[in-house]
Each structure stands twice: as structure tokens, then as C-alpha cells.
């Protein structure tokens, strides 16, 4: 027990988790925005937008996140010179956020699409009969209900995003939790199991409330029909 306390005083473990939480929250925000845009594209009347939306989703669903992260650094930053800050640590953080957001947006789009399927036909028909345009019926009628129907898949995507934020290590974010865990194991090989359990329990503590909240919300918000 004493050694565990010593580990906590020697390393900034909550700080590392905080990096992951920040990565997750920013990526969740951006991927939600991008995901909504993508899902609107996928149901829009303009065929090129539908094709783009589908291609985007297919592409990112079938591409390992590790490769995307490596590309963010070696491709987007090194070659295209897209840079967020001259300070390296800030820059890599935002590159990782962009990579995570691009990847997660595909899954957000699919979750929302499954939510759209829960909206009954009559709603769309009624909207059209009232003379609403596509944008109006999507934003006023369909999407609000779709959100309520897709709470559970969105929650799962969010949990997956939190766990995926450890892959930011591949985008040179050296302060996040999996990098810290490797570093700690390097210098405290004897307490490897204790170190792993600290981090694993940290994630359990983060994930379980999100899961419980998702379940609660999806039952509460689901449109009873």
C-alpha cells in the first residue's frame, strides 16, 4: 500500500487522466458536430453529398485509428504543415483531437442514422405535408427525435472514444495515461501489477458512470410510441 501511495506522489496520475478526459471532451464535441453534418449529408436530396457521407463513413470505419494518428503527425503536420501552435505539446494535443474527431465522427454518424430509423414514417410524411423543406424537416422534426433514439449507441461511441484517447500516444501526446503507465512500468518494474490496476481502475471509474448514465438516459429519453 505504501508503495502505491509513493507512486501517486512521484507521478502525476490524475494529471495524465485529465489529459485523456480533455482529449475525449474536445473530440466528443467536434465529432458530434461533424457527425451531425455527415448524417444530414447522408439523408440529403443531393446525391453527391450522400456519396461523400457514405464514403467518409466507410473509410474511417475501416481504417485503424493508430494509422490515422500517425498520419496526423507525419502527414498532416509534417507534410501539409497544418499546425495549431508553435508549442509542441499543445500542437500534438490538438492534432490528436483532430484525428480522434475525424475517426469518431463516422461512428457518431452511424449511431445517429440508427436513431433516425426509430423515427416513424408518419413524422416525415407529416412534415412534408406541412410544406417543410428538407433542412426544416431534418432539423425540426427528424433529428431531435433521432437524438433521443440514439442515446445508447452515442453513449457507447463516447465510451469507445474515451478508451481510444489512449491511442493519442501514437500522435506524440506523451502526457496521456498509457504513456505514463509505460514510463512508470519502466522505472518500477516490481509493482507492474499495481501500476496496471491503478490505471485500469481509473478507467473503470470513468466508464461505469458514463454507461449507467447512458442506460438511464436512453430509457428516459426514448420516444415511447
Amino acid at each position: 500500500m505504501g508503495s502505491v501511495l509513493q507512486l501517486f506522489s512521484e507521478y502525476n496520475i490524475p494529471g495524465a487522466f485529465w489529459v485523456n478526459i480533455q482529449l475525449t471532451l474536445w473530440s466528443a464535441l467536434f465529432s458530434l458536430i461533424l457527425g451531425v453534418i455527415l448524417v444530414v449529408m447522408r439523408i440529403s436530396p443531393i446525391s453527391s453529398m450522400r456519396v461523400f457521407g457514405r464514403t467518409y463513413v466507410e473509410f474511417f470505419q475501416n481504417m485503424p485509428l493508430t494509422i490515422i494518428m500517425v498520419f496526423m503527425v507525419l502527414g498532416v503536420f509534417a507534410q501539409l504543415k497544418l499546425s495549431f501552435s508553435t508549442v509542441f505539446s499543445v500542437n500534438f494535443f490538438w492534432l490528436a483531437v483532430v484525428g480522434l474527431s475525424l475517426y469518431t465522427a463516422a461512428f457518431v454518424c452511424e449511431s445517429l442514422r440508427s436513431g433516425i430509423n426509430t423515427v416513424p414514417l408518419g413524422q416525415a410524411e407529416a412534415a412534408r405535408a406541412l410544406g417543410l423543406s428538407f433542412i426544416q424537416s431534418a432539423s425540426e422534426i427528424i433529428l431531435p427525435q433521432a437524438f433521443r433514439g440514439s442515446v445508447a449507441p452515442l453513449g457507447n461511441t463516447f465510451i469507445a472514444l474515451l478508451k481510444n484517447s489512449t491511442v493519442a500516444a501514437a500522435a506524440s501526446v506523451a502526457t496521456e495515461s498509457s504513456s505514463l503507465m509505460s514510463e512508470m512500468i519502466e522505472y518500477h518494474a516490481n509493482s507492474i501489477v499495481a501500476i496496471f490496476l491503478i490505471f485500469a481502475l481509473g478507467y473503470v471509474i470513468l466508464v461505469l458512470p458514463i454507461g449507467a448514465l447512458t442506460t438511464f438516459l436512453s430509457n428516459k429519453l426514448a420516444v415511447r410510441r
Partner: protein
Amino acid sequence: MQGTGIHARRFFRNLTAFLCALACLFSLTACGSDKEAGKIRIGIKFDQPGLGFKKSGTYVGFDVDVATYVANKLGYSEDDIIWKEAPSKQREAMLQNGDVDMIVATYSITDERKKAVSFAGPYIVAGQDLMVRTDDHQINGPEDLNGKRLCSVTGSTSAVTVKQKFASEVQLMEQPGYAECATALFSGIVDAVTTDDIILAGLASASRGRLRLVGKPFTQERYGVGIKKGDKALAKKINAALADMEANGSWQRALDNNTRGTHYRPDPRYNPPKPQEGE
């Protein structure tokens, strides 16, 4: 539901057979390469140009040349060598459980490691150095790195050394391998790469003249041949072979071959070293 039951049973039987077949396949491929009589197993790096690199089914590099020479002296021809990959973090474990007979893989002799394994050698004394773009003349030593951007490999302490001892204002980037660092150096997002000079020389040699070494090593890393702990007889034989290699010029030839075009000279104060570790 009768049909489903029969189907299910047949399915389970098929599944079992399939699993057995796969288990055989995987156990063969995973653990098939057992110890063979009359062969020597040597751990090297597979991914370090200039030191140990797998290329068209053969292995090239300074470490490979040293290992081949030593193996020859121990009575193994080139065909008797089984090359195994020895990633940095697995080297001690590989020696301890007998996966390899010796390791020649940029393996620095340290007191920490000597608790777990023994060493012969050293066969070269490398030192931490910087690699920069050939046309960049601003950086001439670790002190010039203030305000510059430096790349090193994840989990290595070399970048931290620079930051603590020489240039506190340096910005660090960590990449999984030196090749990524070199790519970043090419594209200009970092200004220097740091690690042991011989590794950098290998990379610079592969860069077709676009990268160069600064040439002022500021630490000493004694590269040794890792062997099983306490095997003094083997250490003696290896040391004799290494001394022989240095004396008859093959050592210098191997070094020149693998760092061609970089004008790399290992720190002359320490090289060629006297191999007398582990006896």
C-alpha cells in the same frame, strides 16, 4: 426446432474440428522454431539501418558484421546463425529464458543490466550525438538547441538528458522509431534528432547525403555483447574474437561499410575499445 438442434450439433462438431486444426497451426508457427543442434541464435535489431536491418531476406549492419565475425570465431559458419529480433525492452528476458545465445543489438553495458545478464566486449563505444539537416549550420552541439525542436524515440532518456544538461528551452517530440524522427527532420518540423552516434550514422548513411552528424558526442555508451549471466568462458572467447577483429582491420572495414558517406568516426578517445568485460 428439431432441425435447429441437429444443425447446432453439427455446427459445434465442425467448430471443434476447426479449432483443433487452428490450434495446431498456431502452436506450430508460434513455437515451432525450437533450438536446433549445431546452430547459434543471435539477437539483433531488425529495424536499425546501419546496425541491424532486415533486407531482402538477409541482415545487414555493423552489429550483424560483428556478430557474424564472432560466430565464425566460435566455430559457426554463416549458415549456422539463426537471427532473431531483439527489441530493446525484451533483451534481458530473451537471454534469461534462453531464446538466444547472445545479443548484439545496440546493447549498452550498464550496472543495472549486469544484475540480470552478463556482457562481453565492448565492441564499440558510442556516444549520444545530434543529427541535423546537411544545410543547417546553426546547430553545432547540444547547447545550441535552446528554442529548437528535438526528436527522440518514445521511452528513451536521451532527449531528457539534453533538456536537463544542455538546453532547457528545447521542445521535445517523441516518435515510435528513429525513421519517423528522420522523416520529421527532413520535412523541417524538428531541427535535430538525438541518440547514440552510431545509430545516427546508420540513418545518415541511408539518407543519401541529406542528413549529417554534428560529431560531438557528449556521453559514452559502451556497446557490449549480451550473454547469459555468469558465462565467463563464452565471454572470454567473444572478447578474444573482438580483439582479433579490431586488430586485423575487419572492425574498421565493417564500420566504414555501414556508415558510408557520413565521415563518421567513433570517438577516438575510446575507440577501438579493449574488450575485457565479463571475464
